[in-house]
């Protein structure tokens, strides 16, 4: 059943991907801080009409509940603030990094709905934990980006992985390891390095299926919990979703109380459809 993909093959195909737009690289570099100005974002975005339009559509979604139309990026920056707009631009831009390809047996909609769910969970969990909620959203949104990379860069091998997973009712990562000899966490980390994400974010993606306390109660655990919460809520629409196990020490150190979990589930469910609608997933 195995059709092993070597790290060299992954690295070579990731290297061949088209580079991200310059504005995204700049925003990625500034994530978690304030090292970019509103003027610079507005100027650079004005040169990318597709990205601007998508950002504005999200800014005008029911998620933000604006009482008036946001008509321009400058307007969005004034109303929503730089940090929120940065998250919107990154979301819009990174979702375009892999174009939907027909006939590869991979459901893009299921993928992005799970990712958006994890982004919303990541944002709320980060807020509860006193972490940066924009980084929380981003780490949730991107935690499985390696899945998308594998499905697009190695479509035949990945299709076999999905069949194997379904036949044996496995966690996706276990099916990938069995069939491909690699997994989406490793590939996601390679991709995020290529996109110049910070080492802590790369580490979070690399270890989100095996978080351990030596990572500290930080981004690795947050990426893991975002993923687990989104799977638990079954937001993707896939009928055989399963919940990855959370190590006890991570649960004890980072999970909210039972009551807070209930409130968080409800909050994510109430926001989810509006965000998916805005992102057209």
């Amino acid at each position, binding site marked *: 059943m195995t059709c092993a993909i070597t790290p060299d093959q992954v690295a070579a195909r990731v290297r061949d991907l088209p580079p991200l737009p310059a504005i995204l690289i700049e925003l990625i570099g500034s994530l978690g801080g304030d090292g970019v100005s509103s003027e610079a974002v507005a100027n650079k975005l004005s040169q990318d009409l597709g990205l601007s339009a998508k950002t504005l559509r999200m800014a005008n979604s029911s998620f933000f509940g604006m009482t008036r139309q946001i008509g321009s990026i400058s307007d969005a920056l004034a109303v929503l603030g730089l940090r929120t707009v940065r998250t919107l631009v990154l979301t819009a831009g990174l979702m375009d990094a892999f174009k939907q390809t027909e006939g590869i047996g991979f459901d893009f909609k299921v993928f992005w709905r799970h990712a958006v769910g994890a982004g919303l969970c990541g944002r709320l969990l980060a807020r509860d934990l006193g972490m940066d909620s924009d980084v929380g959203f981003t780490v949730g949104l991107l935690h499985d980006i390696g899945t998308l990379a594998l499905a697009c860069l190695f479509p035949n091998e990945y299709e076999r992985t999905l069949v194997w997973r379904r036949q044996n009712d496995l966690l996706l990562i276990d099916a990938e390891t069995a069939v491909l000899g690699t997994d989406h966490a490793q590939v996601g980390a390679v991709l995020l390095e290529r996109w110049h994400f910070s080492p802590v974010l790369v580490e979070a993606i690399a270890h989100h299926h095996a978080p351990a306390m030596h990572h500290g109660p930080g981004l690795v655990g947050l990426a893991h919990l975002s993923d687990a919460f989104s799977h638990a809520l079954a937001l993707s629409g896939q*009928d*055989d979703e399963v*919940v990855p*196990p959370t190590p006890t020490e991570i*649960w004890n150190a980072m999970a909210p109380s039972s009551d807070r979990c209930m409130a968080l589930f409800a909050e994510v469910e109430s926001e989810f459809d509006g965000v998916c609608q805005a992102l057209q997933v």
Partner: protein
Amino acid sequence: MSETYPSEPVAVLSEAQQAKQEQVRLELEHRFRHCLRSGCISPLLHLMIRYKMRSLP
């Protein structure tokens, strides 16, 4: 001597509500079976089952 009691009010679910209920039941059953088979017990799954049961019509 027999006594008659007022019957409990029974909520009548619409077809959509019944379908939703059935979908949630199947989802939870699948996860629970996966959990037992894999030995991966998750406190999150327990909370989610409580949440989903509470929000059913």
